[in-house]
């Protein structure tokens, strides 16, 4: 039986190391720099929109944070496992009495911490711009929470693919997941009107519910118009994220356990 204290210490150590490694990554800083530039540019865009400066800064700001955080999760996440294998440092780690699953969870938590810091930095810039235009609302942190839920899922997906294949294939698969996640909600609207049979309609709905729908975790529009999130939605979103992350980590753990690292 694994000692939970020891397990926590191992996961923490891996996570801390992952955090330090990720914040030294060039990709991380390039994406963060681009995001900050775009956040500052949103102020200029707002002036071009005639009377809707607050809304434009909010929309552009939250979208920028969402897009760039997702890119960070994907491009840092795809190399999480593969780099260790490539550099052969994984042998040193796994030669210790450390289950492979703890290593995976540690890497995952480490990247999630990096993404949290990244998100906080971008939110600080967005808050400053919103204060400057007189449109600050604390609800942007509510939007940031839901963005973070999406990032957690993307991290788990990137980790899963990183544990089974090379970075190129891993990137393509993770990006495909991201695309499917943001377009699956259009499936019922596009296909259902053209299908007459009940069986066909049910099949489309089943496929839709099986596919990830990351658009559900986007509340930017609600924040922009100060509409409250429906009662009970937040805990459902957290549960959905928790289940997705658990399933993906489990699958990654099973795949990584069987993987021959030689």
């Amino acid at each position, binding site marked *: 039986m694994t000692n939970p204290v020891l397990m926590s210490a191992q996961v923490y150590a891996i996570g801390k190391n992952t955090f330090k490694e990720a914040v030294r990554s060039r990709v991380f800083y390039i994406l963060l720099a681009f995001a900050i530039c775009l956040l500052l540019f949103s102020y200029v865009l707002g002036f071009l929109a005639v009377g809707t400066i607050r809304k434009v800064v909010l929309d*552009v700001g939250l979208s920028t944070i969402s897009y760039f955080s997702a890119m960070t999760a994907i491009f840092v996440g795809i190399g999480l496992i593969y780099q260790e294998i490539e550099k052969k440092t994984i042998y040193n780690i796994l030669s210790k009495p450390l289950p492979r699953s703890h290593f995976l969870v540690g890497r995952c938590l480490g990247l999630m911490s990096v993404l949290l810091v990244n998100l906080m930095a971008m939110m600080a810039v967005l808050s400053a711009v919103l204060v400057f235009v007189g449109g600050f609302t604390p609800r942007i942190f509510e939007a940031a929470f839901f963005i973070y839920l999406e990032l957690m899922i993307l991290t788990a997906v990137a980790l899963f693919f990183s544990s089974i294949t090379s970075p190129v294939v891993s990137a393509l698969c993770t990006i495909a997941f991201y695309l499917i996640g943001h377009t699956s909600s259009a499936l019922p609207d596009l296909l259902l009107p053209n299908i007459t049979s009940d069986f066909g309609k049910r099949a489309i709905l089943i496929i839709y519910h099986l596919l990830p729908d990351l658009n559900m975790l986007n509340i930017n529009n609600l924040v922009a118009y100060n509409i409250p999130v429906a009662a009970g939605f937040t805990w459902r979103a957290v549960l959905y994220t928790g289940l997705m992350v658990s399933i993906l980590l489990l699958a990654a753990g099973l795949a990584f356990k069987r993987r021959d690292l030689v």
Partner: protein
Amino acid sequence: MVAVVPLHQDMAAIYQTYPTEFRSYYIPSSGYMKLVSMGQEDFWADLIFIWSVQYFDRYGSSVRDEYLFHTFDVITDLDPRFYEAYIFGDLFLSLDKRWDLIYKLADKGLAKNPGNWLIAWDAGTYAFFQAKNYPMALKFFATALRRNPGNSMLKDLVANAYKYRGDYRVSLRYWERLKKEHENQDNDQSRFFVMAADRNIWDLTIKIDLRALKTSVFAFKRAKGRFPDSLRELLQAGFIEKLPRDPDGHSYAYDPKTGRVWSVTPYKFKGKYAEW
């Protein structure tokens, strides 16, 4: 490099010969935009809106309004709550007097935003003041008032729309109610509404009376084959219940030769404001 510059000049000269109507940017359909926006529909709605504000007059005149409407249709599909898109869309379409497209965009905005009254008010002002389509103006002002029942400005507009549409009695009721709401309040806005209500009640009372008298005079003529000798003959013959007096207490004037009825008391509204 020697060949590139003259080639570029030639190509630019050829480009200038293309008809301006088609030198336009194409905004994809909203279905396509929703797919490619990756869930960030608000962001793309804002970008297209910013672009449209900067370039709305770039289109050739024969295609401008259809492209403009399509642009704002896409923006409001991506972000149905984007109130400014409806307002600016209406503004740009009004420059070419495309009232039909203004009403269409406003109807869409009202359907997607059940609580919003400003979109209805905005479309109503185009219908009333520019298109002079009073039934349409009334439709929009009445919608705005239903969504914002306490707003006196909207009551004023609805009363005016009824008046210009010819529903004098309904308009009179609105003015009387508006006056009652504001007559005991001591502020500039209330004083304005009371003054406007007084003038409208005055003129509407005269118009309602004249309409009733004219109807009775011509009913008499159809029945008897001649105009009545006086308005009193209308009363005696039972074509009218009672003879009205104008707001100043005078009797209405009548010409038995032509059947014309008019008021000796002047209207409060003069000039173009009296054209209703």
